[in-house]
């Protein structure tokens, strides 16, 4: 699990578990990258659902990181919106390529996250949650009243699809307009998610992750041993906002439009719910949460007016019976052990 744990607990079954972990992960990747897109190549709706789930997972990974510093962040929608508008404005008003807009949108969201974070991260608990919730709404209203620059309520449309990305005349990524667009976006979303989870996994298992965990448990104590608390919590929050910005840029270019209500308070709440329901203790928690819940929601489409009702009942049931998230199902041995110690 971590460099610390590796040095301290040498379980007999540890190497076997690492190998089987790798096999499971490899199988998932094969299904995700090869089986699913080829099987559903002719069903753009399903491809779009999986793609959306991928990028929602990606955005939620950022929120998950702010959980590790002990903050409930209901403001991720704001940064998805900021990233989305950054891409929209840069590509339509300045004619920049999407491949420049995408990282820039993340960086802009991250920078704004640093500025906000320096102030609001002093707050904890419900106060931080409330101010981030308000932030989502404030940013939405900001874009709504942005005049010609943001396009007001209808927003910005006719955003170009990603163009060709080449290096020395070799095409690295083809023009999205000239290939199967759904497949192209599917792979873009998949690559983002895989890179995104790799980075978050690496952060949380390195010493950085331990520092974040120490902040979650006691900021005063962290400060007393010389940890620059303000610096690390802003760092975690800025990374979270970066993820939000990248995700927002993706949705903007895949919809080819953006308007202020694309990401609202409800979306911010959903990002949190994906983390909660997937399991806060696991890096893969937000991914499992986002995939299962988002796909479930789409499947319940058949129920028409009862869709929301059944969906909420399922979510409430998960919270009641699996308070540590869906992934806690996977670890009966571990949960038994920790219960034993507590007794």
């Amino acid at each position, binding site marked *: 699990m971590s*460099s*610390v744990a590796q040095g*301290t607990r040498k379980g007999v079954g540890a190497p076997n578990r690492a190998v089987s972990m790798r096999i499971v992960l490899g199988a998932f990747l094969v299904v995700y990258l090869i089986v699913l897109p080829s099987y559903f190549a002719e069903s753009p709706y399903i491809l779009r659902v999986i793609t959306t789930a991928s990028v929602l997972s990606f955005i939620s990974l950022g929120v998950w990181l702010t959980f590790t510093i002990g903050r409930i962040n209901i403001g991720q929608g704001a940064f998805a919106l900021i990233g989305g508008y950054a891409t929209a404005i840069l590509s339509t008003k300045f004619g920049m390529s999407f491949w420049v807009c995408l990282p820039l949108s993340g960086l802009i969201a991250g920078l704004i996250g640093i500025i906000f974070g320096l102030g609001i991260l002093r707050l904890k608990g419900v106060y931080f949650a409330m101010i981030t919730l308000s932030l989502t709404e404030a940013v939405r209203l900001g874009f709504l009243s942005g005049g010609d620059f943001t396009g007001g309520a209808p927003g910005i449309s006719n955003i170009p699809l990603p163009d060709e990305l080449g290096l020395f005349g070799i095409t690295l990524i083809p023009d999205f307009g000239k290939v199967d667009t759904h497949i192209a976006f599917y792979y873009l979303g998949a690559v983002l998610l895989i890179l995104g989870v790799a980075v978050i996994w690496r952060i949380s298992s390195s*010493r950085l992750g331990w520092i974040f*965990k120490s902040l979650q*448990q*006691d900021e005063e104590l962290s400060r007393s*041993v010389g940890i620059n608390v303000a610096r690390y919590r802003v760092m975690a929050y800025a990374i979270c906002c970066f993820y939000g910005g990248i995700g927002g840029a993706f949705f903007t270019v895949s919809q080819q439009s953006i308007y202020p209500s694309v990401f609202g308070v409800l979306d911010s709440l959903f990002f949190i719910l994906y983390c909660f329901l997937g399991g806060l203790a696991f890096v893969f928690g937000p991914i499992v949460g986002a995939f299962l819940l988002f796909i479930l929601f789409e499947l319940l489409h058949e129920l028409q007016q009862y869709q929301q009702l059944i969906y909420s009942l399922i979510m409430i049931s998960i919270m009641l019976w699996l308070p540590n998230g869906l992934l806690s199902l996977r670890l009966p041995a571990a949960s038994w052990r*920790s219960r034993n*110690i507590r007794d």
Partner: protein
Amino acid sequence: MALLTVENLEKQFGGLIAVNDVSFAVETGEIFTIIGPNGAGKSTLFKLITSFTRPTSGRVIFEGEDITGLPAHVVARKGVVRTFQETTIFKEMTVVENVIVAHHLRSRASSLGFFVNSPLARRDEQEFRESANSIIEILGLETVRNEQARNLPHGYLRELGIAIAMAAEPKALLLDEPFSGMNPEETDRVVDMVRGIRDRGITILLVEHDMRAVMRISDRILVLNFGSMVALGTPSEIQTDEAVIEAYLGREDDELGI
């Protein structure tokens, strides 16, 4: 030259004066204790020295350098490290993880270095593990080293708190009520432990209520009452000081252990 000098320190909360014109100097290698009735301003004084709150006026000088009002983590970096009352630990980590995390000040690798697991970061990790093991051994926590901190028996919590502080390599260690809630045997063990830390060259400041332990362990004692200094001297001087007996000790002779 004194290691730590406090000059005319004052802290007001609204109209209330919590610490009023306190001055003293702590020499290297000393065990210096601050006592006083509840609400005398002992804990506030600790917070002022370690920069967890800013003084209204006055200065704190450490190794000849004015550290007043610096951020708390910078003060820790300079070597002034505190422990907390009660059970302030990283509850959701094991004992050894608690101590490893607390080695922050010794890390030479950058955040990016830790992210990419650079050779320097790996060397840091290795060193922290070794150092954590030796701290755990010195403080007698080996038997619980892989225990989740929140499951620890009460007696070990304060030792873990001290182990966390030791990981930051303090020059001056400020212990906030290290003996409170302990039975005489546990107190004896921690008294020995504190002496052991001092013998390793670390200057100790204590806030404590347990008079028996204070009189045994301290080189000098500062008595506070209502935020002001009542007396400053060796244990035997304090025990016979008229003002101290008047203000504080006289009422409860048995607390003194005389």
